[in-house]
């Protein structure tokens, strides 16, 4: 690609003052378009076809340089707008910094600044001609475990950041554990601040070895390591000239090329019925469509399906969208299915293949991350539970153990889980759920618990093997 030659930024200092935009002037199409910005010469069709969506979760603290890294990705991919940059430059000056502090780009709400805390997951967006990226940016400290769990729940890639000087800490082990618990398919360990360890290959290698050793205790499908300097830009967008010993790709190029198509479960057909479409109209007579989003598997017209919980079998008549019928549906397509027979099917039911059915269970064995600060999860506690499009009630029958998320040790004999604690819990549910293990299926293997008085979402559940073996 043109412009792919290494062009390392020397520092995070932004030298060009944003003076090239006269007020009220529309951006011109001949504005300098970098390789990372959508190129003007690209046809619309190519952009549509070539670009898919990748969801990232980042974990790490300000000390690890996470905000700087995200600022760098936004800045170097030319996602930033001039007025955003000008605001950051102004604040940098006000605070007496020598350089434009890219970390300020991810500065949060006033409520957070006043209290010096990070409340939440913040979402950032950037794009290259190859991919559109969504970053779920989560604070790294242990008191924000629930935020990282939230961000990781939908992520294709977890970017874990650590400081090369400090090596692997309790915090990095915790982040890796959470990413593996939430079955994030790709974990990327960015060893940051390589400039402060003289770009040392030995320092990087020793961190890598230690982490590989630790990760062998986790379920991690794909693990990569990149030595970077977020502040100086090395190996973020462009190849570092300071670390010729590193023969891998810079972070952004790695993210662009990551193969994620096989991460989706295309084998087990699971179609939770979300909404029944029955037009009350004079032109569409007797139409009954089952609208929903494909959780997994590939569905085609003519395929036999089994309906849960009734157990009745029929065939798919057609798969429809507002833009016309389609010849197949795969995750995460939102479609409407019509069936050959008139059956009594409603929201919360599930269409599956007759010889590949999920476990129909009222006893659920799951890892639960507790998210409520006002009260712990307790043995005997009753909650509302939402699994795919189905609501029910659940009671906590037992807590097998709590996991010490820093050491991964099991702590047995506990009778409650407090905020940010993760443990293995047995639930009894008022009506059967159609479940798979989370490692097989992130949609049918997950649920939330909701407090029935406050209506708050209080727990995140990850269904384990025991449920499915039962």
């Amino acid at each position, binding site marked *: 690609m043109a412009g792919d030659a290494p062009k390392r930024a020397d520092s995070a200092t932004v030298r060009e003052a*944003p003076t090239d*935009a006269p007020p*009220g*002037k*529309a*951006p*011109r199409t001949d*504005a300098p378009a970098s390789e990372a*910005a*959508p190129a*003007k010469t690209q046809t*619309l069709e190519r*952009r*549509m*076809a070539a*670009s*898919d*969506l990748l969801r990232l979760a980042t974990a790490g603290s300000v000390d690890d340089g996470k905000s700087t890294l995200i600022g760098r990705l936004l800045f170097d991919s030319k996602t930033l*707008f*001039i*007025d955003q940059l000008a605001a950051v430059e102004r604040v940098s000056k006000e605070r007496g910094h020598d350089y434009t502090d890219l970390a300020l780009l991810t*500065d*949060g709400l*006033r409520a957070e600044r006043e209290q010096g805390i990070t*409340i*939440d997951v*913040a*979402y950032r*967006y950037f*794009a290259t001609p190859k*991919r*559109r990226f969504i970053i779920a940016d989560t604070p790294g400290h242990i008191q924000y475990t629930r*935020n990282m769990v*939230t961000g990781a*729940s*939908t992520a294709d890639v977890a970017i874990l950041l650590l400081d090369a000087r400090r090596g692997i800490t309790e915090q990095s082990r915790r982040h890796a554990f959470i990413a593996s618990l939430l079955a994030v398919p790709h974990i990327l360990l960015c060893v940051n601040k390589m400039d402060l360890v003289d770009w040392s290959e030995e320092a990087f290698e020793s961190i890598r070895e230690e982490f590989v050793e630790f990760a062998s205790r986790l379920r991690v499908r794909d693990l990569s390591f990149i030595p970077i300097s977020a502040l100086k830009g090395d190996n973020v967008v462009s190849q570092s000239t300071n670390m010729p010993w590193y023969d891998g790709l810079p972070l952004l190029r790695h993210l662009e090329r990551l193969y994620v*198509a096989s991460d989706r479960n295309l084998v087990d057909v699971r179609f939770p019925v979300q909404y029944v*479409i029955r*037009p009350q*109209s004079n032109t569409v007579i007797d139409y009954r*469509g089952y*609208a*929903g*989003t494909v959780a997994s598997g*590939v569905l085609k017209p003519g395929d036999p399906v089994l309906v849960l919980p009734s157990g009745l079998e029929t065939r798919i008549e057609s798969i429809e*969208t507002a833009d016309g019928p389609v010849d197949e549906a*795969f995750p995460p397509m*939102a479609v*409407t299915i019509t069936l050959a027979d008139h059956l009594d099917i409603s929201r919360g039911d599930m269409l599956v293949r007759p010889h590949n059915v999920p476990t129909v269970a009222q006893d659920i064995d799951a890892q639960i991350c507790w998210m409520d600060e006002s009260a712990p999860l307790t043995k005997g506690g009753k909650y*509302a539970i939402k*699994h795919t499009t189905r609501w029910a009630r659940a009671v906590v029958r037992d807590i097998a153990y709590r996991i010490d998320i820093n050491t991964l040790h099991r702590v047995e004999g506990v009778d409650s889980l407090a905020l940010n604690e993760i443990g293995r819990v047995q639930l009894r549910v008022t009506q059967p759920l159609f479940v798979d293990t989370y490692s097989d299926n992130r*949609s049918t293997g*997950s*649920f*939330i618990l*909701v407090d029935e008085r406050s*209506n*708050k*979402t209080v727990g*995140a559940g990850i269904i384990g093997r025991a449920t499915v073996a039962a």
Partner: protein
Amino acid sequence: MKSHVLSHLRNLEAESIFIFREVAAEMARPCLLFSGGKDSTVMLALARKAFAPARIPFPIMHVDTGLNFPEVIAYRDKWVKELGLQLIVASVPEAIERGIVHEEAGGSRNRIQTPVLLEAIEKHKFDALFGGARRDEEKARAKERVFSFRDEFGQWDPKNQRPELWSLYNGRVQPGQGIRVFPLSNWTELDIWSYIAEDKVEIAPMYLAEERDVIERDGMLYAVNEFTPLRDGEAAQRRKVRYRTIGDANLTAAVESDAEDIEAVLAEVAAARITERGATRGDDRVSESSMEDRKREGYF
């Protein structure tokens, strides 16, 4: 063999459709906020897709500040007719007359539309309101949920929001409380335009460039019309302009442009280096925290 990978736009579309269906299935009285702008237009187009071949199973509401571009009202009514929608108009001028709200200095009705919106929500007992806000717009929005919980006063409390895991949204509320739902949360401005181009969504005519009489104030170009008449000593200039956002006619500025069709607009947006609000909205320039403050008061 097929790749089974959706393009990013179709991925976003599927996510939005899922959100619409979830709300229609679980909430008692949803309503869609329609301003005539490009975001609420895309939102409406997606709502249509979510329930086709049936009609959209909820009404739409327009908070009419009385300062609308006339083209926008005509455009709104066209959609209502085409999709067979029920339209609810919450009128700010009427609320001023009734003494519910008072005109503010500077002529902005941005702030006073909030009580009017809240009154309409209460009157119609809506428990879910779809809004076209995007997280890429502003930093108070970057932390917004897809299902944003609002208390009995319509207020947003950033510390009292529900974790959103996977696509398991929780819309449970007590009577009087509500959820603001943002189906376009993960879309960027460029996505919106790309989608409009790819799906040939009809947008309000003012988004396309045409020759207009304009006047430059505070570095912004305003069309000369009944809402922004010429002041003493000002002389209008004839320039080819289009709008990047559509808000109140007295506060929304235009930008110079030759983009007469969507493809040309898309090319300009792709190369844009100034945020859309920064470039054209006098009402958003107030302070760094202005959006955060307005959301707390019940604004979208």
